[in-house]
């Protein structure tokens, strides 16, 4: 027996050598990848906080407590508070229609939902000026009725809704497609109402994907720059969101204040990434536990 062992071991070692790279190659590849990520991700991230604190904590706090910064923060929160819930309701409705039913033109509908992702932010803002601007198609009519829809807060919100439109739907559709309709049909046969089916059967299955979609939607709603820049009109204290406020401060060479406000948005981005990572772990966890789909039902 002992004589037979070495060839097997050698063969295993040969296969091991042939299914992974030599150590030197591993080290070089890892170093290349880390250097690339450091230069393009870590260094810019660090720069934001270093520049924000370049004149100390007092100057940092002063830049954030400035009235224009506060009104920009308020407008950013209001914009997201309108855009995210609307796109959440849309996302659920679209995913329900697309994944639980068969109808002609379904693929076209799914493609159309993704459309805003393919549109440049600048164009996303521009279409609302073409629609509601003074020379726009509906502009004279809305203005005659006392509605000012561009260079105003409603315009900012409209543009934000447009750019964040697909996020929730796009997260839910593949998820609900994979879940199928059997559980919902069983609940229906047992006499559950539509709302009960959604809340007790569908929602527990999709809650992490839904949360992730909302997080992404919110991050984009608060951080959008190009589209809102076009429709805002840049009226200080009235139609400036946080990203637009960053631009104004930067163009005035007030770099420290610009980076202080930018650090708020960077913090939001980091929270978004942390939440995303957490959601992914929860998802992986619930998938790997035995009877994972039952453990969520009370």
């Amino acid at each position, binding site marked *: 027996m002992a004589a037979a062992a070495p060839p097997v071991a050698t063969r295993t070692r040969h296969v091991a050598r042939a299914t992974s790279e030599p150590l030197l190659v591993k080290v070089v590849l890892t170093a290349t990848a880390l250097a690339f990520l450091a230069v393009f991700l870590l260094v810019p991230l660090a720069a934001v906080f270093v520049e924000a604190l370049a004149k100390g904590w007092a100057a940092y706090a002063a830049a954030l407590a400035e009235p224009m910064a506060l009104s920009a923060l308020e407008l950013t929160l209001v914009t997201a508070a309108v855009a995210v819930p609307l796109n959440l309701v849309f996302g659920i409705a679209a995913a329900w229609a697309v994944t639980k039913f068969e109808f002609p033109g379904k693929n076209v509908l799914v493609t159309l939902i993704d459309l805003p992702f393919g549109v440049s932010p600048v*164009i996303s803002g521009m279409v609302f000026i073409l629609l509601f601007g003074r020379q726009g*198609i509906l502009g004279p009519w809305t203005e005659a009725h006392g509605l000012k829809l561009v260079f105003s807060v409603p315009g900012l919100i409209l543009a934000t809704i447009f750019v964040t439109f697909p996020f929730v739907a796009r997260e839910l559709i593949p998820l609900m497609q994979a879940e199928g309709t059997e559980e919902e049909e069983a609940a229906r046969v047992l006499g559950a109402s539509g709302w009960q089916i959604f809340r007790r059967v569908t929602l527990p299955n999709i809650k992490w994907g839904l949360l992730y979609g909302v997080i992404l939607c919110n991050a984009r709603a608060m951080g959008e720059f190009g589209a809102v820049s076009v429709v805002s009109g840049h009226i200080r204290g009235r139609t400036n969101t946080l990203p637009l406020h960053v631009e104004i401060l930067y163009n005035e060479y007030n770099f420290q204040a610009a980076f202080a406000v930018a650090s708020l948005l960077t913090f939001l981005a980091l929270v978004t990434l942390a939440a995303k990572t957490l959601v992914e772990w929860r998802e992986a966890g619930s998938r790997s536990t035995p009877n994972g789909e039952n453990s969520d039902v009370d």
Partner: protein
Amino acid sequence: MSRRSHSVLPGFRLALGFTLLYLLLVVLIPLSTLFWKSASLGPAGLWAAVTAPRVVASYELTFGASLVAAAINGVFGLVVTWVLVRYRFPGRRLMDALVDLPFALPTAVAGIALTTLYAPNGWLGAPLERLGIKAAFTPLGVTLALVFIGLPFVVRTLQPVLESLDPEVEEAAASLGATRLQTVARVVLPALLPAWLTGVALAFARALGEYGSVVFIAGNMPMKTEITPLIIITKLEQYDYAGATAIAAVTLVASFTILLAINRLQSWSARLGMAE
């Protein structure tokens, strides 16, 4: 109609009705104004607007820089994905999470951070300046910003495909006598090709329309470092709506063509997955 009536689930009319209405109001009607407005120029005016020398120079910069940035991401994105999926090292999970930073970070923040870094007195700009390379306010700066923006597309498209590759296929190749290089070149990389192309194309499409992260570092000199989205904004500010719309329509047709090609790629890779 007949297939739908088989479903016992409620809410079809309500869900589809709301979806279509919202899609129409929020997306389709606003986008249709683009073609309506550019049609008002007439063919001759349309042609003149989209072929003005300053506009053509901006296409060259935007397409060129987007292409180079997508290629850089194609190479380094593959290395990053390989390392994140196949190797174990401290900080791997942190790096993995950080790959999505360009998705999450507002573009204006990325724009001012990159400009400050690559400015002649910046952390990365100063060493480059000593080598005689100017980054900020040149096409190189535009490209660097587009590399940042496109980075997650290649990694996140490749990652699931590389993770789901069956190790047995590589073991089979190895036990049949293939060297590691042969296994990677003939077995692993061909399986990644559709996803890799998709990722590169997505990064390219995103770069074509990118505004916030580029506009600060570009310097915006007409004919030299002026990107197409900025020309659209300039024209809008001058109330040249028809001109802006015509250029926007060109950009939009270009990115939709790429997205259509990506759709084809994805059905190709789905078929490839089915065949195995």
